[in-house]
């Protein structure tokens, strides 16, 4: 349940096969960016956050599985988190970077489909989570922060701050909610 009384669910979606996008990003981060030299593993997870009058967890899973608006069950797996205490597909040691396209997080097509199928109005947001596993001894949160935001060719990778926002998280406990929370950008934070 979110702060305003609406039900909340997060759907984490990963490719079943190796993810070429994560493989390429890992190679670039390790080979070209100082903050990524000790990056041992990198995964990309799409995340949807649904807020509104949601049915049971099983029904949410079934609806997401049935629709083509969220993921392809033949190629991807989906983990639904319907309560804050429920398991998430991240390792405790992973540092998380959530990337959102500013002002374009909402997924109207998904919202329309949901309304058509259930009659209920829900808000659907989508972002991309990069899960970073660093070698032991590295300050994972600090290095993840350095990799999160592009500054120039040698610094940052995952979000271009001129149209994207990013939010940090820990694999042990990803924020709940995560996507609908507005991030305040400090003045000195801006490029």
């Amino acid at each position, binding site marked *: 349940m979110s702060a305003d009384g609406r039900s909340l669910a997060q759907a984490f979606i990963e490719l079943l096969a190796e993810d070429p*996008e994560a493989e*390429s990003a890992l190679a670039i981060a390790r080979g070209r960016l100082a903050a990524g030299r000790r990056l041992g593993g990198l995964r990309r997870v799409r995340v949807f956050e649904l807020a509104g009058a949601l049915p049971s967890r099983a029904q949410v899973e079934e609806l997401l599985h049935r629709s083509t608006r969220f993921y392809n069950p033949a190629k991807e797996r989906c983990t639904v988190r319907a309560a804050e205490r429920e398991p998430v597909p991240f390792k405790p040691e992973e540092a998380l970077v959530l990337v959102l*396209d500013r002002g*374009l997080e909402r997924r109207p097509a998904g919202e329309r489909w949901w309304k058509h199928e259930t009659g209920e109005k829900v808000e659907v947001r989508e972002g991309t989570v990069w899960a970073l596993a660093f070698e032991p001894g590295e300050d994972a949160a600090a290095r993840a922060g350095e990799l999160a935001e*592009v500054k*120039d060719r040698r610094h940052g*990778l*995952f979000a271009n701050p*001129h*149209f994207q926002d990013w939010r940090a998280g820990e694999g042990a406990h990803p924020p709940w909610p995560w996507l609908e929370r507005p991030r305040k950008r400090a003045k000195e934070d801006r490029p």
Partner: protein
Amino acid sequence: MSAARVAVVQFPGVNCEAETERALSRAGLEVEVFRWTRAPRELAAFDAYVLPGGFSWQDRVRAGALAAKDPMLDELAARAADGAPVLGICNGAQVLVEAGLVPGAGNTVRRGAARSAGAEDESVQVALARNRMPERTGYHTRWVWCRVEDTPCVFTRGLEPGTLLPLPVAHGEGRFASAKKGRVESLVAAGQAPLLYSRADGAIADSFPDNPNGSEAAAAALCNARGNVLALMPHPERAATLGQVSRSIGGAWGARRDRALAAGDGSAFGDGPGMAFFHGLAAHFGAPA
């Protein structure tokens, strides 16, 4: 006088190298497709560079984001700092913006500090963000009108300010944007926007579809302050001949297309509006305008 040598720099996923090569050759330039497997230092043997359109590295992470980190971009940045012309078309423009070459050194915001320190400012100052279009999202393609502005840009220097060019756009991430309010407008005011989206009558485009992606200040292209590096979202290589001009285009260009097609004598293979950029590059190296 021998023709200038131009490298068409191809990363995996780029798919407009052949038509770009043809358009450059047509302008009398010596062209070679330079693939990602070659050593970046070999780029030094060329006089100018074009990064064509496509989907470098499948647009992984973000359009242009991975190619921007390639060692070839360090070499291109060095050559650009020496004054060599560099043109990025569509995905090539995304690479140049992500690499910080556009608006690049000597930009209007940090010009003083960067120059006094003798340093190149290669911070990423703008983005080519996802299109903002009413009632639709994603990839969008159409022919648009672009108005030439008064700038030091090498590629448009031969064109009178106010000239209207019909050109095709085809992208999902083509909206010039900045987190800093007014940044793109300031670049336009500083003469770093050689092309603005316009209506067919030449008025600046203020809405979709004339501005096809919601680009701030209607910017269709941005260049560095020196004018030798250009990030261009429309595809001039797809408008290299008259016969390629879309039936949706009227006005003088439409009339020329219709006459050429009706003549049936091969005149449809005459220069289209996109050739202006490639002739501009050739003129920079001394070819007659």
